[in-house]
């Protein structure tokens, strides 16, 4: 428990101080998106890393949050904070209802079903032109505002988004270390045994699916207000896959791993600009190398690598002596 608190404190201090290093830099803008991606990866990790249930349609929940916030605040003039709450509840409720039939499926079938869900919602964003403005995108979304403070600069948005990330990480870490987190891991390890000792596997899976969708929707609302412009490609299938890659590369079942995955996969494109469209080859290679050499993700792989290197040096020293 104390170790968790220490880890979280270090994480929080780093997050709060990071902008000092990047003031006036475009990287600050990138870090805002690292924050949004971290929320999404943490949400997906609760489902995939803890409960062991895959989703290839999580970008849809992200998109629903973004479009609900965008459309309701811009077209209908709703209060943005209130809308964010409404979006989270509506998307969470929707996921809860879809969850009951969909989470009966396992493995590849669940992947296909969530993939289908993602595609259906993507088509709605594209085709329901009267409401979403379709492929040309939806613009003019207001920035969030807190009293006199308008979140209209990179620095302000950084702190806005990362406050949400810190909250989301804290709640997720708490949940993971509670009876619910234990029950989820138990379902992941041996579902029949978990049910026999009284874990309602089906209900828990659906609950965590809904919670995961809610967090994704909040990330979507933030995205809409930060960008002030949203378009369907930001919520397509490839985004779902990117989120999945972040979770796997960071480490399944590790909340901080999801942050590392999000950081790596959000920063990399900035450094791979010179590769133009070929950067996808790099991601594919990275995923392959990672799953072969670091199946536990960065969060396990880096300490392992470090131990191996230290061990190697010690081993050499011994043989010389």
């Amino acid at each position: 428990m104390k170790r968790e608190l220490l880890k979280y404190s270090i994480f929080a201090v780093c997050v709060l101080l990071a902008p000092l290093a990047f003031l006036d830099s475009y990287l600050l803008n990138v870090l805002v998106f690292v924050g949004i991606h971290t929320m999404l990866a943490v949400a997906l990790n609760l489902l995939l890393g803890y409960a062991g249930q895959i989703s290839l349609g999580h970008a849809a929940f992200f998109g629903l949050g973004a479009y609900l916030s965008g459309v309701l605040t811009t077209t209908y003039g709703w209060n943005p904070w209130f809308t964010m709450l409404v979006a989270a509840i509506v998307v969470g409720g929707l996921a809860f209802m879809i969850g009951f039939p969909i989470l009966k499926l396992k493995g590849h079938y669940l992947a296909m079903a969530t993939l289908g869900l993602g595609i259906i919602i993507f088509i709605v964003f594209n085709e329901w032109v009267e409401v979403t403005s379709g492929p040309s995108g939806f613009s003019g979304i207001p920035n969030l505002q807190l009293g006199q403070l308008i979140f209209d600069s990179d620095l302000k948005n950084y702190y806005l988004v990362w406050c949400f990330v810190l909250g989301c990480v804290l709640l997720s870490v708490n949940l993971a270390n509670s009876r619910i987190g234990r029950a989820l891991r138990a379902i992941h390890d041996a579902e029949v045994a978990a049910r026999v000792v009284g874990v309602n596997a089906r209900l828990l899976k659906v609950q965590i699916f809904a919670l995961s969708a809610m967090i994704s929707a909040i990330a979507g609302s933030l995205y809409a207000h930060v960008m002030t412009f949203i378009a369907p490609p930001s919520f397509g299938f490839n985004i779902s896959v990117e989120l999945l890659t972040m979770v796997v590369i960071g480490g399944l079942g590790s909340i901080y791993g999801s942050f590392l995955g999000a950081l790596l996969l959000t920063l990399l494109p900035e450094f791979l600009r010179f590769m133009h469209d070929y950067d996808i080859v790099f991601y594919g290679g990275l995923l392959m190398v990672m799953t072969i050499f670091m199946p536990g993700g960065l969060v396990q792989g880096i300490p392992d690598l470090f131990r191996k290197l230290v061990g190697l040096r010690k081993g050499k020293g011994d043989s010389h002596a």
Partner: protein
Amino acid sequence: MLELQGITQIFGGVTALNDVSFSIRADEITGVIGPNGAGKTTLFNIVTGIYQQTSGRVIFEGQDISGIPAERLASLGMVRTFQNIELFGKMTVLENVMVGLHSRSSSGLFACSFKMPWALKEERRIREEALQWLEFVGIADLADVTAANLPFGRGRMLEIARAMACKPRMMLMDEPAAGLNSQETVGLAELIRKIRELGVTVVLVEHDMELVMDICDRIVVLNLGQKLAEGTPREIQDNPEVIAAYLGDDD
């Protein structure tokens, strides 16, 4: 306490169980024995809600539990262990037992995420009680070991501790002595008696005849999906039909 009425189970064209009826009395240790393929494990899977029987009824403490899903049986007071130990391998020994207390705790998603005071209090109670159950089966020193790394015999003890953490009134054990050495089997017999002393009715499927004859108050013999005999260990040992089923018939 538990009453089976005309249980029949048909898989495809194969009749695994044919009109099996018997009852189990409270506070006794009952053994279910029979040659391989007699339908013992199938019977367990039906009673514990993992299979749905083709026909017949299962009555537990006066309530028809046919068709009730496995996860609800734990809170009704019935729990089981598995032939090939089913542990949560990536979790620690203590965490495994803590999952056993899941059905007897209630903090929800939000209370847990926000660390509400009552959720923390409950978490402390879960941890303390889980430790007591580890002491009960004698593996408290292994609390922080990852379950997958346990030797087989210890894994069996852990599975029993986890089942006891549900505070069951009836425990069904599927071949608890399988894979144990003779010394561990003696320890197991003692443990099963200790469990009965806590007021838990024990039913076990077992191949180890010495163990069965030693600890069981009553024995039910299954053969080819049918009940062959029922009685005290002595009656069963002297039953010519049982001897024929096990050793082959002279005719």
